[in-house]
């Protein structure tokens, strides 16, 4: 390992975080189970008529994944803060934003990607038309990284706080609203046979912007809240 190289540092970070997830691979299933249960609540609460469920399926899948992602957000920096390794990260000679981008990427890979993988199953539970499934997956692929990036900024602001769960939700959800509108909007448009490209393009544009800005904002937020 060449010491000091920024690429090397990022690689070490990614390797470490992946190892940590692997060591606790049981926990990695939790968001999926949570999403499954939330989705399962709806037929129970609304009654089982397939017609009605079909109409609201895409929206509910979106909301369930969003909530599952929200609950998973907490783990992004929490343990790193508690055991002091976040401090070490901040003290490293490499650009913090880059290191955080790596962390966010690993977090997305290990929490959001599995959620996307079960999305078709969730859709099936609510009788989502097969034709919409492709749009749903595409929308999720664009929306979830965006959610992770936006969420990371808010988590960085609340890191180091006790009982941040609810507060985090309060901070994050307003920022998630546009993503939800465009993402679920695309699915609903597809289901209604309307053009659905525009909202997806908006999501893509927002994603590009967030990819650049969010790690920087996250680093700044972290510097504020670690002090």
């Amino acid at each position: 390992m060449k010491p000091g190289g920024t690429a090397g540092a990022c690689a070490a970070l990614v390797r470490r975080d992946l190892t940590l997830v692997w060591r606790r691979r049981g926990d990695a299933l939790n968001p999926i189970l949570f999403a499954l249960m939330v989705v399962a609540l709806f037929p129970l609460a609304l009654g089982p008529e397939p017609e009605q469920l079909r109409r609201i399926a895409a929206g509910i899948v979106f909301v369930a994944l969003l909530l599952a992602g929200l609950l998973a957000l907490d783990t992004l920096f929490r343990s790193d803060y508690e055991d002091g390794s976040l401090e070490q990260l901040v003290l490293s000679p490499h650009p913090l934003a880059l290191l955080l981008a790596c962390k966010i990427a690993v977090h997305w890979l290990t929490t959001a990607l599995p959620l996307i993988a079960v999305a078709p199953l969730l859709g099936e539970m609510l009788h989502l038309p097969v034709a919409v499934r492709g749009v749903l997956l595409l929308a999720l692929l664009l929306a979830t990284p965006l959610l992770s990036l936006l969420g990371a900024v808010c988590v960085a602001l609340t890191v180091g706080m006790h009982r941040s769960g609810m507060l985090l939700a309060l901070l994050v959800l307003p920022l998630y609203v546009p993503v939800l509108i465009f993402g679920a909007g695309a699915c609903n448009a597809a289901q209604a046979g309307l053009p659905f490209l525009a909202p997806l393009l908006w999501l893509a544009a927002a994603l590009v912007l967030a990819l650049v800005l969010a790690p920087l904002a996250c680093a700044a937020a972290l510097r504020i809240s670690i002090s």
Partner: protein
Amino acid sequence: MHEITDSDHRPALLQAIGLGFARNDEPIFGPLDFALHAGEVVLMEGDNGAGKTTLLRVLSGLLAPTSGEIRLHGAPLRLADLSPQVALLSHQGGLKHDLTALENLRFAAGLHGQRKGISPHSALAAVGLDGYGEVLVRQLSAGQKKRVALARVLLAPVGLWLLDEPYANLDRGGIELVNRLLERHAHDGGAALITSHGAYAYTSGTPRRIALRAQAATGAVR
């Protein structure tokens, strides 16, 4: 980079000039002036809440001082580009409990770089944890965790150590170990600032001491 020298005409690894920190406008430690030279170990003493930990965090660049200035090798420390010249041992240790001791050290080497002539393996051996490399940190006792954190400091390619209560949680063997490591580091041209309010402390030679007093706006260098 031009060298700042103090009255002794030796280059100062670390210099604090009128350094102060306040939280909610209540001063935690007063304007402090001191310099730390190569080959020196300085012991900082103070009661609970005197501000020892806070001072170390300010010196490492994690906290911005409210007043005054910090210089490393004569160049002012800025918050934005945090210095790779400092190794900090803090209360928490900075170890992942779900990684093994060696994995933790390897990650530290990847992140901070690695001192010439020392490897994660040999660092672990140096703190007396031969054969514990493959044990998860979670399964180590508090004292052993502290030793792994010390190995991380040992591994970092930096001259300046900031150690917050390195003796806490250690039994007698561990305390001697820390003293030996400090001696060697000073001998190799490094410097260290360590805090303690315990009875055990770095005793070889007669280390300079800095006394911090709680909430008093004064810090005296003896």
